[in-house]
């Protein structure tokens, strides 16, 4: 009789659709809060370096001289502390995970020169 207990579950799952997805062919449903990867809105960045200082895994490098914002994708642990600390709110979290790769990816973003603040003219 005891074998029937498992049999019930197995029979039920025979008539169900699979519990797994054919990821990445079938896109998965992301939750609103999913921490996928960091993106930057380059136009708003002031290269203050707060994100670099607060990054627990030292994955972000801000170079003021070269005007670049660099992120080591494999080093980033998606903790979102850079997003929380950014004074200009130019960093944000995207829900999608980065695609798997065989090399360590480093994304370099060139930050354009900021226009002179309008407040000065007024």
């Amino acid at each position: 009789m005891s074998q029937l207990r498992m049999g019930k579950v197995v029979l039920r799952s025979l008539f169900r659709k699979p519990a797994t997805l054919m990821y990445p062919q079938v896109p998965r449903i992301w939750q609103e809060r999913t921490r996928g990867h960091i993106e930057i809105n380059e136009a708003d960045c002031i290269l203050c370096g707060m994100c670099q200082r607060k990054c627990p895994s030292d994955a972000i490098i801000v170079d003021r001289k070269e005007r670049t914002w660099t992120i080591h994708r494999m080093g980033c642990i998606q903790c979102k502390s850079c997003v929380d600390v950014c004074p200009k709110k130019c960093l944000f979290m995207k829900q999608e995970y980065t695609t798997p790769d065989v090399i360590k990816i480093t994304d370099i973003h060139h930050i354009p020169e900021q226009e002179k603040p309008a407040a000065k003219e007024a």
Partner: protein
Amino acid sequence: MGKRTVIPFGPQHPVLPEPIHLDLVLEDEIVVEAIPSIGFIHRGLEKLVEKKEFTEMVYIIERICGICSFGHGWGYVSSVEGLMGIQVPDRAEYLRTIWHEMGRIQSHLLWLGLLADAFGFESLFMHMWRLRETVLDLFEKTTGGRIIFSVCKVGGVRRDMDKETLQSLVKALKKMKVELEDLTDVFLEDDSVKNRTVGVGILTKEDAMECCAVGPMAKASGIAHDTRLTGHGKYMELGFQPVIETAGDSYARTVVRIREVYQSIDLIEKAVEMIPDGPIDIPVKGTPPKGEFLMRIEQPRGEAIYYAKGNGTKFLDRMRVRTPTFSNVPALTKMLQGCGFADVPILVLTIDPCISCTER
């Protein structure tokens, strides 16, 4: 007396999710002695506390273990909060309790799956992990991460849950409970499963005391030792009482974990009813002062100890984590004495070994 043979077990073995090495001294097919050795995946996470600010360290500490990550985060922030004398808002404590219990559910479901896998019951293993996905999805919905949540911070939590989310959480867990009952019946009633667990690896109450067993190991041997009774979180308000079994064998340890899963679902349900409105964090000013603080948290695997030592700067002097698996290893060697060689994989699994935690 038969001829003595030493058989190395691990660190790479199909049944072991993580590396532990045991030298098994056998007489014929019976284990006479087991000599454990650990240290294969030491990562030096505790040392990082001297380089990372105390607020950033939460994210590192969480990565000690991928299964009890919420508990580690909570243990660390509680010890720092204790050091700094911070009183966390009630709502934050309730949210932490809810997440911690969800962590316990997924950890025990993972373990039940691994146990099924250890005695070769593949379909049971798959079904347990399918149910575990429900909890992981709930974690993703509420915290943003499936395994590492990054939701605890010194002074409170980073994410709130609204009423609808809390209700949907309970609803999803109740739905899972119905399916889980069918599967746990297999663990509790199926003859082929019981043949492998009942009466195997008996740890008496005296032995458990002597070897300082913690968590489900101690509870299955009749010791009511659970640090949730010490008043951390909101367990006392929820009327928590530990699950106790007395047989001390592998079956009793399975029963304890299964009952704890149901208990956790009930605790979450109660917490959702009782959770007050209010802030989820308080601003933290200053740095941890000179001093020490010791915090005990009941992880899914048992009591974990967090020791923090401040020096007045934003870097802690010392952070020490004593994890449950470490204190269960002596009990394991005791348990292995006199068991059959074929039972070794199951007995190693019944302590729910988490070697990443142990070695950090």
